[in-house]
């Protein structure tokens, strides 16, 4: 799966699905165009050929129907993995997600767990036309009963997807479209635990808290800051629910300053939760308020304007600069 140029995120996800299909006959994939086409991003490339069109099922074009069918399959004991074609096209399935997927275990006192994985390509930066670049993580993170994870590295693409499929919880697995074609040298093979954040770069002066598509941007910002003598720590949350308070708070306490970076609209976004809970838990360690660098509070713009919307290095460094260094 990995060439000289390394393994791409798409390949890592593909390998994770293949390994899961091989190891567990209960794993079934379903979604739009995941069979012969291999998915519009080719994440399921070759899987119908290897496992048959039953285990890699091209469904009718109806997202609530797809997720509702997966719920029924899971009730019978299967382990469905659903592909939603794009973020905004998961919205028709919102009722099935919020009222059934998230609640079934709880409403049946644990008797009907739903080990369903819902893969959703999300976010912008790929020149997509409207409805193809939404960041919808806050909707899911706010819905109790769901786990919500998002890889930012190729290794985590493999590891978190394996963990999601193996999990007895329903997991919303958000795939950063922008990182589909990023690549790493070593083919990933290890399962990554759900619920653990990881420090991607140590730093002493301030901490960037981020996830998914914004991790590379934060690492570039840290690089740039370092050139100017500021050492920024960078934390990759990986799992939005459950949230790893321990790792996050330790990283923030160590620097006393923090900026949250994500690409979805800021208002009532995931960054608000991160900022609020870090402040609740680390208030007396903070030399400055936790700031947020996020997408704008507007509908996602057309491709020629999206660079103004996405958090970039400059905006991150601006926020870091506003962390009141004079104190």
């Amino acid at each position: 799966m990995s060439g000289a140029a390394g393994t791409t995120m798409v390949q890592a996800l593909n390998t994770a699905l293949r390994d899961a299909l091989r190891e567990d006959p209960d794993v079934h994939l379903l979604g739009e165009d995941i069979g012969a086409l291999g998915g519009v991003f080719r994440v399921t490339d070759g899987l119908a050929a290897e496992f048959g069109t039953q285990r890699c099922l091209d469904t009718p074009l109806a997202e609530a129907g797809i997720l509702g069918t997966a719920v029924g399959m899971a009730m019978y004991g299967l382990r469905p993995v659903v592909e939603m074609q794009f973020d905004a096209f998961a919205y028709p399935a919102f009722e099935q997600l919020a009222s059934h997927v998230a609640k079934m275990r709880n409403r049946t006192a644990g008797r009907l767990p739903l080990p369903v994985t819902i893969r959703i390509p999300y976010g912008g930066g790929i020149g997509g036309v409207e409805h193809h670049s939404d960041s919808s993580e806050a909707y899911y993170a706010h819905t109790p009963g769901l786990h919500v994870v998002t890889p930012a590295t190729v290794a985590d693409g493999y590891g978190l997807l394996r963990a999601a499929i193996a999990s007895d919880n329903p997991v919303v697995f958000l795939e950063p479209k922008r990182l589909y074609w990023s690549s790493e040298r070593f083919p990933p093979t290890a399962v990554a635990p759900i619920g653990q954040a990881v420090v991607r770069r140590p730093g002493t002066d301030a901490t960037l808290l981020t996830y998914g598509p914004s991790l590379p941007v934060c690492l570039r910002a840290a690089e740039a800051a370092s050139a100017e003598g500021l050492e920024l720590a960078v934390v990759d949350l990986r799992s939005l629910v459950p949230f790893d308070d321990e790792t996050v708070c330790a990283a923030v306490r160590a620097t006393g300053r923090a900026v949250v970076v994500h690409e979805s609209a800021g208002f009532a976004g995931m960054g608000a939760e991160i900022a609020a809970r870090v402040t609740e838990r680390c208030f007396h360690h903070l030399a400055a308020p936790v700031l947020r660098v996020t997408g704008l509070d507007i509908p996602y713009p057309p491709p020629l304007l999206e660079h103004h919307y996405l958090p970039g290095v400059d905006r991150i460094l601006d926020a870091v600069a506003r962390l009141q260094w004079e104190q």
Partner: protein
Amino acid sequence: MTILDANTTPGLAGQPSSHGPRRDAAPLLPEREPVRVLGTEAAGTVDPDLLRDLHRRLVLGRRFNQQATTLARQGSLAVYPSSTGQEACQIAAAMVLRETDWLFPTYRDTLAVMARGVAPMDVLALMRGHTHCGYDPRRYRTAPLSTPLATQACHAVGLAHAARLRAAGDPGGGHDVVALALIGDGGTSEGDFHEALTFAGVLNAPVVFLVQNNGYAISVPLTRQSAAPTLAHKAVGYGITGRLVDGNDAPAVHAVLGAAVEHARSGRGPVLVEAITYRLDAHTSADDATRYRTSEEVEAWRARDPLTLLERHLRGAGLLDDAGLAAVTAAAEELAASMRAAVARADTPDPRSLFSHVYAEPTSQLREQAAALAARLADEASTPATPATPAEAQA
């Protein structure tokens, strides 16, 4: 032949193959008039034991509805959506299923759930406000009573499909399962109903959809719900078989549904059955039906009460005498008494259960919240209760 194959006819003449083959429409269209047994010659051919069994279950079901409604009025249930007038559908739905089949009920289908073997108070746990689902869905092969309309139809298709997948790998493993999804006339307007039927048709899943067309979705009459000739006419649009039955004619519903279940089980595809019926009670114990329907209409339907129709037939055919009726009535009273007793015994749920089943393992966030609640409860237990207004107690 894969499990996805279905009976098809050649494609549309003159079109290359990508658009076909397509099915023939005629066999999918429903009968012009609802199937009836009672009052027809067919009635004489039905097994008398089946008729008596149906009758007994109708009487018990009616009494269950009455008692539950009373309990709701008295405040022991938060609410109760009675199926009085629809008992024939409820009972038949459960009777045509094997133990290994699955039922997907709505909030109104309490009788069908009870007929699967669930204890009355466990059926009513949702309405008691005690827990969201009082029974083990896997044990009774019965999904939780579904409140979000039509959503359960998709689950039924998925479960039926999964069973076929398992059956393909393990033919003798008891996986020749049929899923029966119950739905109301109003529910057929929801997108999820459409998507369920689309998937059922394409997957050729062994699923039966029973639409209990009781003429109303709360206050909205069928004429404002759908302009279709009948709801059974929707089936052809998904390549599945449509059937129309008199939902107040218990042996007719039993026969049509039974045939539908066997049709599905044998791999001939899903069936949509529309049963024309009427709810004689209000939508729920909290509803005021006089706002939207006349007493004349209700009376006209009372004359077609499924219990009356069946009792009249049994009496006429000499299959039920006063003693038989008394025995059935006594059993119904016993059921009602047991419901009252169970309610009197009812416990309060343990607040710690709030956190037990949100996830397979509680998150650290939930552990914190559970600990905080436990501390508050311990506090309350140790301090003398201060007089609180009801509003404050709630808040």
